[in-house]
């Protein structure tokens, strides 16, 4: 690849990085907190590419089309491997792969997003049915010595997962990027679970219910069960993952 083409690829990569930041699609691949750093990276790449292009144009203008110097400007270090950078340009700029699906994140090792010690959690807000992130429900149900979930109506959002023994509510959790995505889930049971089961796989739902207290003799981590009272289908949220 010639030096000029390298500069164009560098410029395009910078623009694609800017594009996924501006359109917000970067949240399909990494955490939202990376946004300022991605923006700075985009600016840096575009600056590097433009300054090289401007320098080459000026150098060419100074030297004219003198044959001896042409080789100097397109200097000897050239490698075909830079063609590989066309792959991220194509994927980020044109194809834009979707967010991780439920089944893609499925090889779940544990339902807990991270190791948390048994401790008293702060009490839930006093509202009728406070909204909780699904992973937090899993953590509280397993690791809360203050039993803040007991007897409380809560609201959880997630997508449906049809299992052999009933319907589950799932959410893909990422720690850093899509490569470490895994699935957190709740079993849905109770009066409105049958309604939830009528929706197709991976329908986004907002669910109201109470968590069934975990039997004290279960030592390990388990998937909590939610007694569902109400189910509302919703639009897919802006951020596809929980963190």
């Amino acid at each position, binding site marked *: 690849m010639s030096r000029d083409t390298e500069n164009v690829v*560098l410029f395009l990569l910078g623009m694609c990085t800017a594009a996924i930041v501006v359109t917000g699609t970067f949240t399909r691949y990494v955490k939202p907190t990376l946004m300022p750093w991605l923006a700075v990276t985009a600016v840096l790449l575009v600056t*590097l*590419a433009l300054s090289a292009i401007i320098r080459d144009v000026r150098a060419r203008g100074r030297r004219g089309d003198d044959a001896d110097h042409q080789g100097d400007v397109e200097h000897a270090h050239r490698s075909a491997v830079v063609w590989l950078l066309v792959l991220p340009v194509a994927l980020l700029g*044109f194809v834009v*792969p979707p967010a991780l699906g439920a089944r893609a994140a499925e090889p779940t090792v544990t339902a807990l997003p991270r190791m948390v*010690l048994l401790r008293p959690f702060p009490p839930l807000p006093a509202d009728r049915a406070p909204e909780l992130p699904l992973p937090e429900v899993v953590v509280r149900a397993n690791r809360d010595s203050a039993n803040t979930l007991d007897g409380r109506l809560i609201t959880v959002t997630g997508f449906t997962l049809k299992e052999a023994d009933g319907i589950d509510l799932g959410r893909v959790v990422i720690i*850093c990027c899509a490569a470490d995505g895994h699935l957190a889930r709740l079993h849905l049971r109770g009066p409105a679970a049958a309604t939830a089961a009528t929706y197709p796989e991976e329908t986004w739902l907002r669910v109201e219910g109470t968590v069934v207290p975990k039997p004290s003799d279960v030592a390990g981590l388990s998937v909590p069960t939610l007694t569902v009272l109400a189910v509302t289908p919703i639009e897919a949220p802006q951020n596809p993952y929980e963190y």
Partner: protein
Amino acid sequence: MTVAGRTRQRFAGSMQVLIAGLIGLALFGGTARAFVVGRPDLAKAATVFCGVFVQALPFLALGVVISGLIATYVSPDRLARWLPRRTGAAILTAGIGGAALPGCECGAVPVARRLFGDAATGDRQGAAALTFMLAAPAINPVVLVSTAVAFPGEPAMVGARFTASLITAIVMGAVWSRWGRAEWITRRLPRSPHGGGSKWTVFTEAARHDFLQAASYLVLGAATAAALNVLMPPTVYEHLAGQLLLGILTMAILAFVLSLCSEADAFVAASLTMLPLLPRLVFLVVGPAVDAKLFAMQAGVFGRAFATRFAPATFVVATSVATVVGLLFLGGAR
């Protein structure tokens, strides 16, 4: 005329191919997207690839800014003057100095390549640069804090990770100064293309060159990681509980395969609760030192002859050091 003619033609060649490719993408991007979305395995591989690449991009950018500054302000003689005269002391300084680069492993590779300089400047500097490359992503404060957060009940994990990674880096630096050969470094740093020029020119040219090279190989590594991520059977973890040696070996291989960022790997290791701590420590020590994407990047910036020797050696050293340190710090198979 003939030289100019040929150059012109080649220039037009790669540019035309690129433009044709872009037009093709613009026309058939939607079709390509539908094709990817319709195949769950392909969609997952594409998303994982984008995840690894986009996550690494800002760290790589930080790395090439630092390497550009080194190219601009730190001449090889000055670096040689800063380093302790004795090889052992130089390696030790570089290892501890690694704590000062708060990034992950992608940024450390181009920085290390700049510090390495031309092999002619002496093996002391080369060994120090390699030690820095292995130490920086594993023992910097950001990584240690995230390890502490991921393993709340196990403060020994942080100490064990720090110690094992630092020892691995120092051992590999010493191994290089003893057995390393300059002729394995087949990739040279470019001479300043416009005969020196202003500081801005030197900086942008160095950063541009280092980014293009490291990022191209990052693509190769991220693609490998994405493919393996999809092909890896999910049951692999379930067979490991209770088998310590097999667990250690598998976690070392898994660290190589998954190519996770060193700032995130602690959380992944923490979630593998069915395994004892020791194999998970091996995972944390091997990952930042050698993995699929690092191997590709090292081959790109140092040369293939170097990477095919250095990476397997690092893998063996990191696995054994982590096992020994783990036995001492964590008391075996807990």
